[in-house]
């Protein structure tokens, strides 16, 4: 079967179609937030998206062997960049995440997500294990995963480090861990989090967000009695989302609402204007698009012949799912606020490049390898 015929398989079409529609939605949403803020982000983002599609095309076309060979080198280079960003990085919003290259600000932590997927997939493909993994044998993937997580958290960027950790752990769980060891790990994680809370490794503003979230969920404290200065971003985002109701607000109505004062409305809170304008129906459509991408990735994993390919596809599914779930949960008040992007829709070159490149690789897997 030729490549083009395989491309026309229904699931591949669904995946590519969903990604394409998400990209269009992203441009439309940015055009709207630009009118709120007086910026021109949608133009910049168009350039990034086109670049991303080109990158995806390249990754879809080349032999995955090259990618696999290069993965470790890329991983090492990104670790160096992550260390470098702590020293020479550009600080935005009290966080050093970006490296300036000419007119662009690149965020190595975003690329690291893909790199971790590739490196872990490579490891698990080479070291096949006949039984579920005991934790003691997982020290090398643990190190591969832990190093970027710690480095990213130092920037500080809790959100991205959580996502990287979630992707890695998802892959490990997919690979299989002894149930008893899994229990130990879960208990250890809980202890670690509570200790971190007590000894101030968790930063005060993060605690504040967690507490605000707790109050919002538990005590329903969402009355607008407090002056603007004391109102949280999360509350305002919630009102904006709620104002969408069934079918959404018109553009003019959405403009004259709390969205006007909502910070990060073009990046981390991009779902808020979308939900306000699209309403419940439109938001469900958006969710369906993400579900389509994730389901496609899982299907690719299912059909993959090579272990490496399957694991990469699982990793990509985890990447899209966790970013989508955490981001959407945070905007609609289900989770505390952390700084991560909505895949493809939020403004940001590195994020979009990473996700599109990952999707390109999925196409590569889906098209080139013979499925069962």
């Amino acid at each position, binding site marked *: 079967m030729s490549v083009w015929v395989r491309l026309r398989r229904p699931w591949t079409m669904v995946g590519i179609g969903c990604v394409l529609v998400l990209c269009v939605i992203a441009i439309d949403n940015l055009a709207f937030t630009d009118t709120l803020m007086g910026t021109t982000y949608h133009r910049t983002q168009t350039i990034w998206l086109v670049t991303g599609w080109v990158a995806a095309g390249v990754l879809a076309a080349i032999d995955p062997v090259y990618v696999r060979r290069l993965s470790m080198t890329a991983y090492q280079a990104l670790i160096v960049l992550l260390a470098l960003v702590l020293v020479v990085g550009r600080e935005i919003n009290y966080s050093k995440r970006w490296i300036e290259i000419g007119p662009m600000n690149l965020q190595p932590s975003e690329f690291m997500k893909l790199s971790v997927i590739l490196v872990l997939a490579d490891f698990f493909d080479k070291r*096949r*294990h*006949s*039984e*579920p*993994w005991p934790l003691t044998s997982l020290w090398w993937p643990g190190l591969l995963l832990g190093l970027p997580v710690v480095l990213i958290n130092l920037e500080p960027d809790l959100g991205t480090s959580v996502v990287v950790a979630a992707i890695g752990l*998802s892959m490990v769980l*997919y*690979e*299989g861990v*002894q*149930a008893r060891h*899994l229990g130990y790990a879960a208990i250890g994680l809980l202890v670690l989090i509570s200790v971190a809370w007590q000894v101030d490794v968790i930063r005060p503003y993060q605690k504040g967000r967690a507490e605000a979230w707790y109050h919002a969920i538990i005590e329903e404290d*969402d*009355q*607008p*009695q*407090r*002056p*603007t200065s004391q*109102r949280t971003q999360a509350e305002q985002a*919630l*009102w*904006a*989302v*709620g*104002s*969408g*109701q*069934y079918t959404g607000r018109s553009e*003019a*109505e959405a403009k*004259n*609402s*709390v969205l*006007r*004062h909502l910070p990060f409305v073009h990046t981390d809170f991009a779902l808020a204007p979308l939900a*306000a304008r699209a*309403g*419940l129906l439109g*938001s*469900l459509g958006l*969710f369906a698009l*993400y*579900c389509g991408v*994730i*389901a496609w990735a*899982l299907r690719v*994993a*299912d059909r993959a012949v090579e*272990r490496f390919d*399957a694991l990469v596809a*699982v990793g990509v*599914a985890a990447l899209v*799912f966790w970013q989508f*779930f955490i981001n959407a*949960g945070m905007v*609609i*008040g*289900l989770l505390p606020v952390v700084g991560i992007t909505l895949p493809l829709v939020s403004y940001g070159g590195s994020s979009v490049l990473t996700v599109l490149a990952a999707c390109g690789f999925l196409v590569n897997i889906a098209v080139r390898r013979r499925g069962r």
Partner: protein
Amino acid sequence: MAFAFGNSHDPLRFRLRNRLALVLIVAGVLTLVARLALVQVVRGDRYQKYAVIERVSKVRAQAPRGLIKSADGTVLARNIESHSLEVLTNRLKPDRVIPLCTNLRELLDMTDSEHAALVNDLSKTVDPRKRRPLLVRRDLVSTHCPFDSSQLELVAEQPHGFCSVCGRGFEAVPPRHTCPFDQRRLTANGKGWHCNACDRDFSEAPACPYDGQLVRHLPHILQCPLCRRTFNDEVAVLRANAHRLPETRVVADIQREYPFRFLASHAIGYVGYVTPADVAPLLPLGPPRFGLSDRVGRSGLESVLDGALRGLDGEQLLVKRSEGEQPAGDLDELVQSIRPRPVTPGLTVRLTLDLELQRAVKVAMKDVFSGAAVVLDVHSGHVLAMYAKPSFDPNTMSGKRAPQARPLDDIAQYAPLMSKAIHGYAPASTYKVVAAIAALQEGVITPKTEHTCGGHYDFGGRRFHCHNRRGHGDVDVFDAIRASCDVFFYHVGEQLGLDRLEAWARRLGFGEPTGIELRESIGRVPSLQWYKQHVPGGYYPGFALSTAVGQKDVLATPLQMARVYAAIANGGLLPQATIVAGFEDANGKLVAPNRLPPRDLGLHKATLLILQQALRAVVNQQGGTAFGSQPATVVMAGKTGTAQAPQRVRKQVAERLREDPAALQRLVAWLQNDHAWFVGWAPYHQAEIVVSVLVEHGGSGGHNAAPIARQIVDAWFSRHPAKSIPPPEPKSERKKKVDPAPDDSPDEASPGDDSAAPTLPESDHQPGEPEPEPGEAPAQPEAAP
């Protein structure tokens, strides 16, 4: 579970795990969907309402300052609206500074230097978090004249040119070169026409004749009916042009207005803008609750009662809505649920001042350059009138635009801001009652004790003169008071000594606060201790003699004198003076504060009687120093005083008058006059009011102060007929006679021992004649002991 986490070599297990992952993902997405439905559908209505609220902001709600009312409830100080212009620097982008300032200059009469200063202020780079609104102009003209607070009138557009270099305004040249404002002839000063009286320029040239700048024409459509100045309605102009000034706002503010202007300004006082010096002492008590344009009391009752008048500012939460939707009813509910801290308005103060009497006092003192009068209720100590001359207009002091020439500079010598009724002066002969009371109570003299007045008294190698150089002959205490014999009181002072004089003066309320709610001078009661500390040579026994006649180092305020005479009139009860009748509660009912009871001085009946009779004789008997000033309505008793006054020309006045020697000479001549005093009460029986009058450099007490007191008493009793039993004495017909009757028989109403008063050879002391120097002339010999 085991299969789920088993090794994934087995394709079957891999597939199962894949399914499991799919299930978990679907569960996660369904959670999201459930939450989304809750937020958008279940709570959608509510969140939609919140979402259209653009902003909830906390603002300070200024408490209105309490009113000040007279005894009958007439408002003496009230609040009117004023406006100020602020630039919101946090909204101002750097490239908008110049256009904004240009627009402001076009709309307001802003000079080039003001414009440059504003540009400079706005161009400063300030940390965005520390940006505060910048105050551009206070008291924008809108409804009231910024100079005298009169209500402005809308008039046809007046031509008014404005030079942006020198800031001069030019009116159109009037026909016949007569100033349309005060009808004076204009003078041509080579540049244009000028009114010297009101300091206005008239020109129709397109350029300013002073510096050649092109004159800009501002439409003036408001005119002050009082000062005839014309104005632009600045608030209306700024509001109409708000679209050109998006970074500014016009802030409504409360301004103080005093409708009776000069009438009671010393008692009421005025307010001024709050300064860092006002805030600094309050800082230890917590963050100060002052706004940028708050006013605080600066003098008088406004200052003393500032805390009560100011009230407590509240907090208000403003909900700003977007333009899109206005679900008003629901939002109103929201606003109400916010529960701001309510405003506590300042308390309204009711004074004891009687406005009619105050006016009468003002009229009575119309010919006086400088002086004070105070009228008390004899029993309660309520201040019925308190006036000082020259007065000032508190409206011009209350932080409004300063007039071009400060009118107070012209009368600086007369200390217009000084509240003279509560300022210490040498009380002179009015103080003799203190010596008389002390001597009678201590038993140093009896009503029959006589001393011979030969016109002077030699003591300690110095000669102390009587004001009557020819002497009064043999006088007892009655005659000594009636004729104001100094020699009699030199004897008394010598016998009493300074210690007993001091003790009695303190008992009679000198050297202590009178109880009035104003910042008063407590005067000075000289003592041995005081002389040791303050006089280079220390105490010299002759000082007691001068003290007995109220000269030398004694200082008493007109109010303190009034209290003593009130005590004599009411039977020996020294009342606490008060000017605040009370505060009004929410229903306008008067709540009077608790007050100290009058002090019982423990005076013997005989002491009181002889003093009362003697003081009546001063006014009503031939030979009395105030004979000729009997009121038409009731019988008045009192005492004159003529005090040597300091002849100091104020430094700033001397500098001002350096180029005008004639005016300086007039001033020096005026200063050579003595201070004139009169303190008395009426009616003689069943006294009601006590009047204390001081005329600075007025001449003699009998001729210059007593007639004022008479007018005041007449004004009061023509409105409030006296309750006293005896009708006005028939003698009053003769009171206007200038020629002295050779022998005036004691009046019928006086008790029997009154007849003991001998007819003294003082017929030469005529009312028409200037009263000679009283008291101890020996100021010079004493100065060089």
